[in-house]
């Protein structure tokens, strides 16, 4: 029989000012199995805890109920006290008579006291039925996976590698670098993006603890914190990367032309291509969907033979390659190669995409001189299509008037209600760079308002005003295409309270940041959830900004919400630190408040298996019959299965039927 000790807390006057603590203590002492009932001014104080410990050590009690504030803050404290005194800490139960009683029923002392009696009786009812539980530990695979090779993924991977953990970095493009590699300069210091990024790319690629898998995608993830099994699909490059030297001769001979995504569609690349000049790894890829199969050289076929010379007729890319890295006779698998890796934790840093201009019908998307800010970034970049010279796409002439339109798709109920956070600053950066280079350029910027919260940001913005850049408060209503490839801007100046109309040569749209479309399937593979803004959801918006509801899975960068480079790097380093915790510990604790199947009671109906949000339940053979089995490390203890089991074969430890029925009984007595 259980020996329950009840300890009622005054919490100074927080509880005792409303509830008759002595009446509660007296009532508790008469409840079944209660052997002792005490009270103290502050149960959580040293003397209060000592009182409990002494009773345990003296063998008076083997179940502890504390009637006090709330288990959400104080359960760990009292559990630790029980454990120190030698009692299994799961033989503790708390009665919430402060947060859910004295604090809300100050107007009704008698009612509050009557409620406290019930709550204590309920806790005692549960405590009598508690069972000791044991924490279990499972070993951890000391390796991490970082998904996404932009600045977020690079920073996280480097941090993990420097801590000594083997790290896999998976990037879907042929090169790491992400969107930052497409940028010209970065605010508010105007550092050249390539100058600060490329050394990091090289470092991450050559780090002895890092395995960079580029041109690869995560195909499947199973397992749980400490032991994830990940299948990575290495896409087929049709070029032997061991031999490829990155000379680019194949690209120069390839006749097939495709819009170049790296240049935001402003130029063309070849089907055989190297992603960009500073690519890491600098390896060629044949984009087979756009390959023309020159000379009838389909992949996996033998070449025709020249009747005159007797030599095989090769495709231009094959012929051009000095390293013989391209051999089209090899029958490549278009599905690529699956690489299986085991990791203990995962950092997701899959980044973002910007909205295309076609979404904004009133902004004359048909005009080639209406471009997105990312396209302008490529135009002003030295590695871009015009080698850094400002030209407008329609005629490659230098524009005289250029307009910047903010909040295209951001802070707009038709698209995204959130602020994309970086647009104000990058537009100011672009305007400043252009004004420095072309002082005669007329630059008109249209903002709802300028958001420049960040170290050195507002100074950067006010500096732009001082440079003679025109800044208008008010959204642009629309653009009209005019002859001569010009555009009429129809705007409003809220400060002057006047409509504005003028002709512009080039219009730049700051389109919203959003999650790329393929993020949805990745989320399903990983068990990630989305927030209201359709980014990946963190565990807690303030106190768990890198964690997720899936243990062992962490977030970094714009996939969690729009942010600039410094914030992305900070979050990536935070995510790396959090991801390193299970790896450094070498083992992960399995909470004992999880579900367990009693196979002898199980009928093998299988109702529970599809209900489990963590796919922790499978049907396993037990004495020649299929019986449900719960993978202890994957179970999170929600109890959905236990509630659904028609045979009552599943027990959720800590929330067992007998315990809950005892509570119901006590509350309705």
């Amino acid at each position, binding site marked *: 029989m259980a020996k329950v000790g009840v300890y009622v807390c005054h919490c100074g006057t927080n509880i005792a000012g409303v509830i008759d603590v002595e009446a509660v203590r007296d009532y508790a002492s008469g409840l079944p199995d209660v052997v002792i009932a005490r009270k103290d001014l502050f149960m959580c104080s040293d003397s209060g805890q000592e009182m409990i410990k002494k009773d345990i050590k003296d063998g008076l009690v083997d179940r502890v109920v504390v009637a006090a504030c*709330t*288990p*959400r803050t104080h359960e760990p404290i009292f559990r630790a006290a029980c454990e120190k005194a030698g009692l299994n800490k799961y033989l503790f139960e708390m009665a*919430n008579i*402060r*947060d*859910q*009683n004295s*604090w*809300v*029923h*100050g*107007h*009704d002392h*008698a*009612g*509050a006291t*009557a*409620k406290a009696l*019930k*709550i204590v009786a*309920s806790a005692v009812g549960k405590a009598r039925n508690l069972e000791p539980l044991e924490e279990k530990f499972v070993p951890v695979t000391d390796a991490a996976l970082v998904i996404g090779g932009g600045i977020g993924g690079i920073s996280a991977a480097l941090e993990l590698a420097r801590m000594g953990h083997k790290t896999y970095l998976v990037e879907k493009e042929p090169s790491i670098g992400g969107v930052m590699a497409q940028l010209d300069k970065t605010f508010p210091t105007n550092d050249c993006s390539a100058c600060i990024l490329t050394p990091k790319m090289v470092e991450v690629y050559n780090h002895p603890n890092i395995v960079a898998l580029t041109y690869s995608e995560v195909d499947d993830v199973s397992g749980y914190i400490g032991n994830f099994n990940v299948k990575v699909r290495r896409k087929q490059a049709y070029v032997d990367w061991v031999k490829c030297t990155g000379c680019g001769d194949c690209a120069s001979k390839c006749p097939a032309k495709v819009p170049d995504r790296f240049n935001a569609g402003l130029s063309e690349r070849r089907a055989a291509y190297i992603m960009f000049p500073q690519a890491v790894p600098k390896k060629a890829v044949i984009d087979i969907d756009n390959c023309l199969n020159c000379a009838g050289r389909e992949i996996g076929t033998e070449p025709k033979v020249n009747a005159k010379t007797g030599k095989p007729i090769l495709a231009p890319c094959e012929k051009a390659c000095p390293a013989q890295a391209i051999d089209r006779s090899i029958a490549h698998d278009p599905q690529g190669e699956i690489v299986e890796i085991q990791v203990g934790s995962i950092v997701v840093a899959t980044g973002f995409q910007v909205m295309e201009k076609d979404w904004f019908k009133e902004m004359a998307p048909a005009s080639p001189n209406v471009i997105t800010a990312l396209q302008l970034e490529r135009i002003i970049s030295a590695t871009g299509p015009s080698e850094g010279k400002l030209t407008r796409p329609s005629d490659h002439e230098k524009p005289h008037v250029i307009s910047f339109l903010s909040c295209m798709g951001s802070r707009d109920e038709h698209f995204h209600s959130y602020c994309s956070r970086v647009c104000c600053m990058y537009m100011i950066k672009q305007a400043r760079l252009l004004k420095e280079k072309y002082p005669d350029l007329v630059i008109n910027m249209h903002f709802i308002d300028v958001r420049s919260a960040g170290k050195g940001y507002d100074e950067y913005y006010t500096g732009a005003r001082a440079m003679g850049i025109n800044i208008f408060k008010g959204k642009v209503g629309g653009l009209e295409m005019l002859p001569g490839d010009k555009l009429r801007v129809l705007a409003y100046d809220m400060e002057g309270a006047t409509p504005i109309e003028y002709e512009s040569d080039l219009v730049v749209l700051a389109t919203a940041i959003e999650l790329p479309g393929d993020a949805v399937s990745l989320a399903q593979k990983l*068990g990630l*959830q*989305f927030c*209201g803004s359709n980014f990946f959801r963190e565990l807690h918006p303030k106190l768990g900004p890198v964690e997720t*509801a899936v243990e062992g899975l962490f977030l970094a960068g714009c996939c969690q919400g729009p942010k600039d480079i410094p914030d992305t790097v900070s979050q990536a380093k935070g995510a790396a630190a959090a991801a390193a915790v299970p790896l450094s510990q070498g083992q992960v604790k399995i909470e004992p*408040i999880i579900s367990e199947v009693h196979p002898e009671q199980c009928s093998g109906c299988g109702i529970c298996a599809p*209900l489990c*949000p*963590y796919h922790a339940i499978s049907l396993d053979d037990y004495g020649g019959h299929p019986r449900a089995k719960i993978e202890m490390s994957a179970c*999170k*203890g*929600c*109890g*959905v299965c*236990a*509630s*659904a089991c028609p045979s009552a074969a599943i027990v*959720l430890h800590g*929330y067992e*039927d007998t315990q*809950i*029925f005892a*509570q*119901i*009984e006590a*509350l*309705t*007595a």
Partner: protein
Amino acid sequence: MSAPSELPNIVGFACQWCTYAGADLAGNLRAKYPPSIKLIKVPCSGRVEPEYILEALANGADGVLVGGCHFGDCHYKEGNYKTANRMMILKKLIEDSGFDSRRFRLEWISGAEGYKFAEVVKEFTEELQAIGPNPLKKGGN
């Protein structure tokens, strides 16, 4: 001020992540509500078995509240969807058992909705007072 005997007795099942936290927040906010409800903490509203609710009503509880996270907010991804499905059927079962189905409420109250928790309890209490006590009530509160 209500005398305790006039107050309905409400048994509440609250998920520890949202509604239980919301009830604690009501305390932090000192949001007043009648001392009619007593919560049983569960990890997820999906842990609440229909039998618990029927048992509470059969034992004489005047009302039963099940509180979970809003859709999309479930700590266990989708436990609250299971709850919603389960409770829809339960409502019918409650009526079939001869109880006024208004004695049972399912509410989504987040950890940030302290005032909502207080408001829900206040409203539910008033409704139960209007319906009158559970005929199976054993006395006491």
